[in-house]
Every structure is written in structure tokens, then in C-alpha cells.
């Protein structure tokens, strides 16, 4: 059981690493937020649950932490993305479509 927990935590750490690598490699803010939230969601889930498996008496507490992360993670990424769009940070050159101008509150 202990070894299983270690493996789960290891996979989680790998995802966290890929997430941070994505923050460096991606070309603009929005893609960085994508990499930063997507990979860290599963990364933190697996790391926390893995600790819960290693210490069975903590399992339910870790489950509660995972639920809170599940609720707060998208909210924080949404706040980052919205703030950067509102302050007019432009998309990278690779972008193929930008419909922001058609959205209410962004026509300036």
C-alpha cells in the first residue's frame, strides 16, 4: 500500500513538472495559464491523494483538500485570464482567431 502511494505521488510530481515546463515553453499569457492550470490540477490531485494512501488515517482529509482544489483552481485561472484580457494583453502570433471584440464590455 505504501509503495502504491509513492507511485501515485511520483506520477503527480511528474505532472507538476510538466506544468511548470509548460509555463516556460508556451508563447503567451493565455497558453501559459492553460498549461499552469491543466497539468497542476491532476498533479496536485495525485500528489495529495498519494499522501492520503500512504497514511490511511489522513485519506478523508486529503479528499476534502482535493475537492477544495477542484473548486478553487478554475476560479483562479479564470481570474488571471480575465484580468489579462481586460488589461489588453495581446495574443501570440500563432493565434488564428480572436473574437474578443464581439463580446460585450471589450469594445474600446
Amino acid at each position, binding site marked *: 500500500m505504501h509503495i502504491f502511494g509513492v507511485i501515485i505521488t511520483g506520477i503527480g510530481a511528474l*505532472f507538476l513538472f*510538466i*506544468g511548470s*515546463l*509548460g509555463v516556460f*515553453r*508556451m*508563447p*503567451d499569457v*493565455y*497558453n501559459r*495559464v*492553460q*498549461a499552469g*492550470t*491543466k*497539468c497542476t*490540477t*491532476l*498533479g496536485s*490531485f495525485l500528489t495529495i491523494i498519494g499522501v492520503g494512501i500512504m497514511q490511511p*488515517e489522513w485519506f*478523508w*482529509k486529503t*479528499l*476534502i483538500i482535493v475537492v477544495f482544489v*477542484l*473548486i478553487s*483552481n*478554475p*476560479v483562479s*485561472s*479564470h481570474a488571471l*485570464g*480575465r484580468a489579462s*484580457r481586460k488589461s489588453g494583453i495581446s*495574443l*501570440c502570433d*500563432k*493565434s*488564428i*482567431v*480572436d*473574437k*474578443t471584440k*464581439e*463580446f*460585450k*464590455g*471589450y469594445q474600446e
Partner: protein
Amino acid sequence: MTNRLSKRNSMKKKQSGIHSIIYLIYLFVILMVIWMTLTLSFEKQELFTGIIVSFILSLTLYSTFQIIGFPKVTVKKIIFLCIYIIILFKEIIIANLDVAYRVIHPKMPIKPGIIIIKTELKQDLAKMILANSITLTPGTFTLDIDDDKLLIHWINVKTDNIEEATKIIGARFEKYLKVIFA
């Protein structure tokens, strides 16, 4: 925004007092469940503290909870909620593998863009859950929301047509949320 809120407040006030007591009980039960999971003990002291703190918190917060709104609970909705959670977890895992692949790939196969999709959901809570689910799923995240439109950043744009994009991104969650918040 304030106008909308005050309108809704006056709407809520017309409803009977029993309604607010139901919300109070909902909130109390939720807080109590979280407390029990965190402490994991059934000693008298722990339970007593939990009951007092949850009661005070639910007394002060139930009016806010009422503004958020909570659908009526039926068996069918609970089943749909369970299916929804399973689908959400499946999508989270796909999302992670998808983005991890795009990050590791030497050429970085991304086609980013910002598009608009539409939703048919009416309640604020339902829209919030939809927006958060979209953020958690493959390559998309919600930038802003306005009435029935959502502004979405897509890492691999397949179409810029509103209807098609709605089908690809929103439809898989919307059909379940429509039942849950009916």
C-alpha cells in the same frame, strides 16, 4: 449588477419563511459534514464544537447562500450529478494528458485563439459550474461570461462558428446540467 441583485433579493423576500429555513438546514448539514470529515472523531466535545460553529456560520451566511440558489433535490438529479462527476473526472484526465503532450512535443502543436460559445442555462450557479467545468477540460478555459455568452480561450481551435463550438465544448456538460438544474 447591483440592480440585478436587488431585484433578486426582493423576489426572494416574497417567498415564505419556511424556504429560508430549508437553506439554513442545507448549509448546516454541509458545514457539519465537512467538519466531521476533517476531525474524523465522534467524541462529545468535537461534535458539540462542530454543531455550535456550524450553527453560527449557517445563521450568518444563509442569506448569501439563498442568493446563489439551490435546486430541489430528487433521486433523478442525484443520479445525473454522479454521472456528471464521473464524466468531469474523465475529462480532467484527458485534459491533463492532452496539455502535457502539447507541452512536451518539441514543435508545440498549438493553434490558440479566442472564441465565443452560447449556453442555454439560466441559473447563475449552473453557469458557474459550466464555466468551471470548461476550464477543467481539454484545452479550453473561460475568460469571461455575459448573460448567455461565454468567452473562451481554446488552445487548439477547430472552428470559429458559435454553434459548432458550442456543440464541441459546452454540449457534453450542458445536457446533464440542464437536468440537474431543471
